[in-house]
């Protein structure tokens, strides 16, 4: 089913999303990949603040190419999510509600998603030029020294994703293999 949602990703919206749904997201989302996750995780373990409010937020696992003059952002497709698995349950426990990436997640992440009622979306891997067109604003808000791995605040319009794992733990990747 096609769905259009706006951020923040509140509980009522989470409950309406099912594995296999095609979803267009509009609103503010944040980027973080390997190095930024490691830093946020360390900060949280030390009881320090992290650069944005996790409550009802969506994280996009992205490290874009540099923007040309006049472009909002460069190529901007998803990276493989499983590398973030180690850090994800702590983020979910602190309010993160949605993640956009590609590929499988660990058992621990899925269990934490069910416990915290969160959603895992996939964007199409290798479609970074197309996806960049859906990003209307981009600003580095933290960890500038990490270059492409810095945390960015993005404003997206009708950003196309597919629900892979819903808040009940249904997993589209597994469903399609069982039915083939």
């Amino acid at each position, binding site marked *: 089913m096609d769905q259009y949602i706006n951020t923040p990703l509140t509980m009522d919206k989470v409950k309406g999303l099912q594995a296999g749904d095609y979803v267009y997201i509009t609103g503010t989302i944040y980027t973080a990949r390997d190095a930024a996750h490691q830093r946020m995780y360390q900060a949280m373990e030390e009881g320090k603040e992290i650069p944005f409010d996790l409550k009802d937020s969506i994280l996009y696992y992205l490290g874009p*190419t540099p923007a040309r003059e006049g472009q909002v952002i460069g190529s901007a497709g998803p990276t493989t999510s499983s590398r973030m698995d180690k850090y994800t349950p702590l983020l979910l426990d602190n309010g993160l509600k949605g993640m956009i990436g590609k590929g499988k997640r660990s058992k621990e992440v899925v269990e934490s998603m069910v416990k915290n009622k969160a959603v895992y979306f996939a964007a199409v*891997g290798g479609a*970074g030029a*197309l996806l960049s067109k859906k990003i209307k604003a981009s600003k580095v808000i933290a960890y500038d020294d990490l270059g492409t791995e810095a945390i960015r605040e993005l404003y997206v319009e009708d950003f196309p994703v597919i629900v892979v794992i819903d808040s009940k733990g249904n997993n589209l990747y597994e469903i399609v293999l069982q039915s083939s």
Partner: protein
Amino acid sequence: MRNLHTDEIIKNIKEMCIEANYKLASDVEERVRGAYDQEATALGKQILGQLAENLDIASEDSIPICQDTGMAIIFIKLGQDVHIEGMDLEDAVNEGIRQGYEEGYLRKSVVGDPLIRINTKDNTPGIIHYEIVAGDRVEITVAPKGFGSENMSRVYMLKPSDGVEGVKRAVLETVKLAGPNACPPIVVGVGIGGSFEKCAVLSKKALTRSMDTSSPIEHIRELEDELLLEINQLGIGPGGFGGKVTALGVNIETYPTHIAGLPVAINICCHVNRHVSRVL
């Protein structure tokens, strides 16, 4: 003896890094676009449609096809009658990469020490494979490689008794484990024979071979065809969301090996299988 100045090498590598990241070689592009008609599922078709549109946007608006513009893998076939003048060849190759990734607005994805992990900020060093060949020409292939698919690649040290069935099992197992992580539809490069490191290099080289070509060895050509058919029966499909088109092609390279061994390497590449070659 023919002289070749490193300025020529720098300039060409720079241009090839940029070209590879904005426009797929025609053999790969045709497979990506052609996959739409082969796919049966609606979602699979939708994904393949997006990939075709992505290629259009990349070339029309000068945006790299994928944000992972890769680590620069460089194959150099150096004619033994060529004299390189100017700077060190290796430094020249890395200078070409540095200029290409900067001027081409490409992502800097390389960290220096693999454990300390500080970004080198210019995407160097590249990975260079040299081969000394007859003649007075230099053939350079630039193949930027993304790591979503690289991470899903594997080497198997099979026993001779495992035979061709063992090779097939290894390839199918690797593709299944890769699943959605490697951005299907994928291209599969396979190296069979040699030694531990030789088969890995062969598998990478296989990815740079045109998808319009088959192995010149008859039983290997048959194996390429059979593997493609069986991979596309796994049901992984475009994006891993289910469907018929899991792989666009299987290229196999072989080399003689030891009486005790059957090394097999499977190098997975996503549909953005980038490679540009020039002869200087």
